[in-house]
């Protein structure tokens, strides 16, 4: 078992099923995603069938089952962004990268997540890639943004 996961589980020594979500949150926090082996370990630790752990984990949007890409894209789905077209932005990103929310591109470059309002409503619709905000995203600017990140890799 991975050291980080072991440490987290050790904090929950006599835990029962009620601790499942906090444990999953901590693991995702530390590893960026929930791997099959982490979920299996959690099941063993809580004496819970892995099918149940998987069932609960996949119920929540917050959990990822693929490692984050080099560039992690967060699309704001708050009200202001929504009004200004974040649904289209999300759709365009999914189309351009051929992934859905929660997934990572095969080359491991990009991953996608939706987040509730990130508090920069003035910049709507906004996306955040590895901490950099991109404001007023349009279909055109989006492909430029994505290209610019791809180029970073080529340098």
């Amino acid at each position, binding site marked *: 078992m991975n050291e980080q996961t072991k440490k987290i589980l050790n904090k929950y020594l006599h835990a029962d099923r009620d601790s499942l979500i906090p444990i999953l949150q901590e693991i995702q926090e530390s590893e960026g995603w929930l791997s099959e082996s982490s*979920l299996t370990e959690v099941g063993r630790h809580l004496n819970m*069938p*892995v*099918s149940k752990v*998987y*069932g609960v984990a996949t119920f929540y949007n917050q959990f990822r089952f693929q490692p984050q890409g080099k560039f992690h894209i967060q699309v704001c789905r708050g009200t202001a962004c929504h009004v200004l077209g974040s649904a289209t932005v999300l759709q365009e990103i999914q189309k351009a990268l051929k992934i859905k929310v929660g997934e990572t591109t095969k080359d491991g470059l990009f991953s996608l997540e939706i987040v509730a309002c990130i508090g920069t409503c003035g910049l709507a619709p906004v996306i955040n890639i590895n901490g950099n905000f991109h404001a007023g995203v349009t279909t055109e600017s989006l492909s430029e943004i994505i290209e610019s990140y791809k180029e970073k890799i080529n340098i």
Partner: protein
Amino acid sequence: MSITINVNGNKIEAKAGETVLNVLSDHGIKVPTLCHLKNMFPTGSCRMCVVEHKNTDKLITSCSAIVEEGMEILTHSPRVTEARKVIVELLLSNHPDDCLYCVRNGNCELQGLSQELCVTERRIQGRRNKLPIDTSSVSILRDPEKCILCGRCVRVCEEIMGVACIDISKRGSQSIVSTAFDKGLNTSSCVNCGQCIMVCPTGALTEQSHFAEIKEALSDPNKKVVIQYAPAISVSVAEEFGLEAGKDIAGIMNAALRKIGFDYVFDTSFAADLTIMEESSELIKRITENKNLPLITSCCPAWVKYAEEFVPELIPNISSCKSPQQMAGAIIKSYFADKVHIKKEDIYSVSIMPCTAKKFEGQREEMTNKGISDVDAVLTTREFVKFVKLFGINMHEMQGETADSPLGIRTSAGKLFGASGGVAEAAIRTAYHTLTGSELVKFKIPEIRGLKGQKETQLQIGDLKIGVAVVNGLANAKKLLDEIKAGRKDIHFIEIMACPGGCVGGGGQPINLDEQAVKDRIQSLYRIDDTESIKVSHKNPDVIILYNEFLGKPLGKKSHELLHTEYQKRDVII
């Protein structure tokens, strides 16, 4: 305490604490249900069972609501029936429209409800989820597109089987019943028992069919096609052909199977007798050597797989005897093949089992002899019924015939294998004879008969005191095995069957949620035992000949080679 409620304008007495649904059904008022499973805790998730609660003017789910004094209920008001209809329409909104091609056509609860509630058009159009069928298991097929997420399979798998290899994952319109990581049943701890199929209201769950292969073998002039049927089968199918429910139709089956084109027909109960010869000797050996006790039966392949996954530390306790299906297969392709001068390569060996796990067992590595499988294909009881109809056999016209010889005779002890407790009872009868040289005065052991999940008794056989435990339902087995692991020492022999009631309640049986059907089948087996004269396996004349001519003695070299095997820990996602 008794209270009074008002249902559809009539006063009804009800026991306090009961659910509304139970009270209604006790009074013959039928309310449709979907997620509800009798004798299990209600989840109240499908809302199919809604009734109108006049006191609050609300619709309540009758399966989970508890009766209250003065409650006024309407079970079929326009509001209620409309609500139920909408529920069905919603379920149908993303359901495939291929009833004509579905295994459950004519026997589907969703179809039934749609008819009952007069759904005649698609008013609600939902988006179909395109989802692949899980074909990874050799026993069970899961078609998620036909799943209406009632959750019954999930609960049976967890609460009755103690396996819990499936759960509802994801959410909203994406929800699906899946194994961990959606990797398919074959990577999971699924024990292939098929109890999920038995409770599924739709065609989402069914067995992997061996229909085509068997038909092909039947039309291959170079193949001799041999068939055997498990002890439970002949008492489980009469009603499917319009004959008296629970009736033993072994003779009719023999005739029908020959008419279909099978070259030789056997009752697996013969091999059950053989199993008893080997297993009772094994029991005596282990008790005298005080080794690997308690001895645990190995007839149920669902239990064996469970053990390999969940309690590998108990594998040494499991009997090394193959199951009757596999013993019959092994003897057919050796002794019998020689007798009738057929090469074993030319034999295609089929079995009819009340069981989906037998499909898995049939293809196990351990169940082959120099690369040749003991059993080539397995039909469930359900498939057998279809087979008979497909070949246009009229069971009413069939004259009873006997099974083929040699191996054609069975005792009533062998027949008892079909019911929970039967293997233990048959084994004790023969062990008693081996140890004391005389026969039991009373053959029946009532303490280990019946539908109860866990049964026990202590028996005095000669100088030995033997503790016997019988469990059905793997969740019950787990409880007992936990006690054994914790050091319980008074049990020497354990019979474990995965399915409720034993194989008569198996996952390959006709789909019928009525517990009475299982009871009738058990009664039928006991009737056979009461009325027939050879009640002990060691008196089976064909078994005696088989040992004299071929096997030598129980646990001997030949037996070891053909009739015994061993198991190993199995790594799956648990």
